[in-house]
């Protein structure tokens, strides 16, 4: 029952996120994925028949689909991963009800403190299960639902079943299929008509065990005229072998609603982070993805907005930071399915110390989506000659009278900028950190203050030891 802080060899200093918790699982399925494991997970969760069938069908799809032929190099032995680990018997409603060592973990990550200060509700997931959940009383009084997706299957079966898997079907891609087969945890949120949630709801996903796969499933339904800001954070300690995080996030923004989904993830750099995120926005609704990708070995993630009815807006802000041994293949997808819809993608990527970042994005204007507007801006900053940046913009326009713009820039940290800052007394490391922070500032200023501070801190951490 202790938490050890492990020294991070690659940096040679203590990384705040790199610690392992000695935690005794209540149940741990054997390694590998097959029908037996899927049945076992479903049984453990006491699921209705339809969900078990859904999982088994998804497993077949997973087995039949080839690996993606594009993106990064994926070298995963799917039979060498644990797919389900139940850390505790029940979910805490107060932190005191959470097993001490797990509570300590989240204490270190600053979650209970943030909850007290500025959050409307929190979900904390440890390995496969949500171990803590809270929601402000006034919000539950207004009919807001914020629960883990497992509980939603039992407690809100009709609402969940109406939308589950409708935005991202199991057939979408190999990893969506895998998630659909073995999913566990994640958030289920329903915001009733007209309810505007002022402070963010936050979920925190922590992988702790070695070779652990995390497959949370999130479903957010924002009813007409409602609004929500959902924030997720993700971390894991460093192990010598790879782990997999493969989530599916589906969002429905009904007429006139607004949803902002902010991700700040800082995975250890042996995690494959292969995530499918997609939202549909109906008339006059606005969906915004703010996606901060730090860490991981390989991230492939392209949050999407399908604008289904006139007046819908989709905005995606993406930050990717790739350093040694990392490939961030990140981007965005905007699909204009109706006239007068507006989309925007802003992507900023930083590559350093041999890291590789790619922007991969799609803007598609369907037939009939007249007078739609989309704009894409992607800027890449490369810090040294060892590092790499690529841009893969795809544009498909099937109608006329639309406006689609694309600008891309690649820059290297200029000698003159470095000299200027150093001639004012900044060290080489401070100067390059300042230039990088300036580069992502247009995105960071979109974040609530607390997250902006965290983002800058993470960048600082990535920059440390970068000069030598």
């Amino acid at each position, binding site marked *: 029952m202790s938490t050890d802080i492990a020294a991070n060899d690659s940096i040679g200093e203590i990384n705040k996120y790199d610690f392992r918790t000695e935690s005794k699982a209540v149940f741990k399925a054997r390694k590998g994925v097959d029908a037996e494991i899927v049945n076992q997970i479903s049984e453990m969760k006491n699921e209705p028949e339809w969900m078990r069938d859904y999982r088994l069908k998804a497993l077949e799809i997973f087995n039949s689909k080839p690996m993606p032929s594009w993106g990064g190099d994926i070298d995963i032995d799917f039979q060498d991963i644990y797919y389900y680990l139940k850390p505790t018997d029940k979910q805490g409603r107060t932190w005191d009800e959470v097993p001490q060592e797990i509570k300590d973990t989240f204490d270190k990550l600053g979650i209970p403190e943030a909850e007290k200060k500025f959050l409307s509700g929190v979900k904390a997931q440890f390995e496969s299960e949500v171990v803590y959940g809270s929601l402000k009383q006034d919000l539950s009084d207004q009919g807001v639902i914020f629960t883990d997706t497992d509980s939603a299957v039992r407690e809100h079966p009709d609402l969940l079943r109406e939308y589950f898997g409708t935005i991202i079907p199991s057939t979408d891609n190999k990893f969506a299929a895998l998630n659909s087969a073995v999913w566990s945890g994640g958030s289920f949120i329903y915001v009733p008509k007209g309810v505007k949630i002022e402070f963010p709801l936050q979920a925190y996903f922590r992988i702790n065990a070695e070779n652990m796969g995390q497959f949370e499933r999130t479903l957010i339904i924002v009813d007409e005229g409602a609004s929500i800001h959902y924030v997720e954070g993700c971390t894991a300690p460093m192990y010598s072998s790879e782990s997999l995080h493969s989530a599916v996030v589906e969002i429905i923004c009904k007429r006139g609603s607004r949803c902002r989904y902010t991700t700040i993830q800082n995975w250890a750099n042996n995690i494959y982070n292969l995530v499918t995120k997609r939202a549909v926005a109906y008339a006059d609704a606005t969906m915004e993805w703010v996606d901060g990708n730090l860490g991981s070995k390989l991230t492939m993630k392209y949050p999407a907005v399908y604008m289904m009815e006139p007046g819908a807006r989709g905005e995606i802000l993406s930050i990717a930071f790739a350093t040694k041994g990392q490939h961030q293949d990140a981007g965005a997808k905007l699909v204009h399915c109706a006239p007068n819809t507006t989309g925007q993608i802003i992507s900023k990527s930083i590559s350093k110390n041999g890291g590789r970042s790619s922007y991969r994005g799609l803007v598609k204007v369907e037939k009939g989506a007249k007078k739609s507007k989309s704009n894409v801006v992607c800027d890449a900053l490369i810090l040294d000659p060892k590092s790499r940046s690529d841009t893969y913009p795809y544009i498909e326009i099937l109608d006329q009278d639309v406006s689609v713009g694309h600008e891309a820039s690649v820059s290297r940290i*200029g*000698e*003159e*900028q470095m*000299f*200027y*800052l*150093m*001639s*004012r*007394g*900044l*060290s*080489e*490391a*401070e*100067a390059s950190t*300042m*230039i990088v*922070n*300036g*580069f*992502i*500032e*247009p995105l960071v200023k979109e974040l609530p203050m607390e997250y902006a501070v965290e983002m800058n801190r993470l960048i600082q951490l990535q920059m440390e030891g970068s000069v030598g």
Partner: protein
Amino acid sequence: MSHILRIENLHVSVEGKAILRGVNLEMKFGETHALMGPNGSGKSTLGLAIAGHPNYEITEGSITLDGEEITEWEADQRARAGIFMAFQRPVAIPGVKTADFLRHATTNVRRPDRKEGEDLIPMREFRKELKSKMEQLKIDSEFARRYVNDGFSGGEMKRAEILTMAMLSPKFSILDETDSGLDADAVKLASASIAEIGRDKMGLLIITHHDKLLEHNPPQFTHVMLGGRIVETGGSELARELHDHGYERIRKTYPDAEAANQEMLGKEEPATV
């Protein structure tokens, strides 16, 4: 206070091309020196070499500050030791607020031993000081929130440089054509600001083509540069003479230096900051 900046037999090359060919110059704290000379004579190069630009390679000679040799020091070390240069064309750092940049710079220069990550000057204290300096220099308070030199007009850039000088209060300041690209009123304001901030409070090396900048800053010494060397040194009357009559007399008196100057002009101009 007595501080001395001494440049001895300084030879500087940029991308393998010799620009400075043996410069000697000594400045004391509190003195004002004017550095004049035709285009391409090496004035900015001298400034950048003193400030520690990595592309300006010192091939011979030395720079010492209060007896300590700083020839091999990095630019940040020199800044922390009290060397400052106001650039002719300062670069933009998009996304970095002027106030944040200045707070960092000011902290480092005042606490030369500060390690990365250690606390900066307390925000409240810093803001107060910055605000008063900005008022003194008639700079709009909105300035502090703008990104460093990003989208600044010529006049704004120069004022930002003077503001930085005011915050860092260096021992020695090199002002590289702080009057270039400014209209008459702006030059007047810059001149008065330099006098207010710098006169008697540091050693000033004012690089200029005109005497307007010197109006409020009459130099005790005027140096004329030609072909990468200081060929003549005089008092403030020399600055006036050069302003009124140009460099004809100098070019004729020092034909070797003039030949070197023509040769350098024929080459590609070195990158300036």
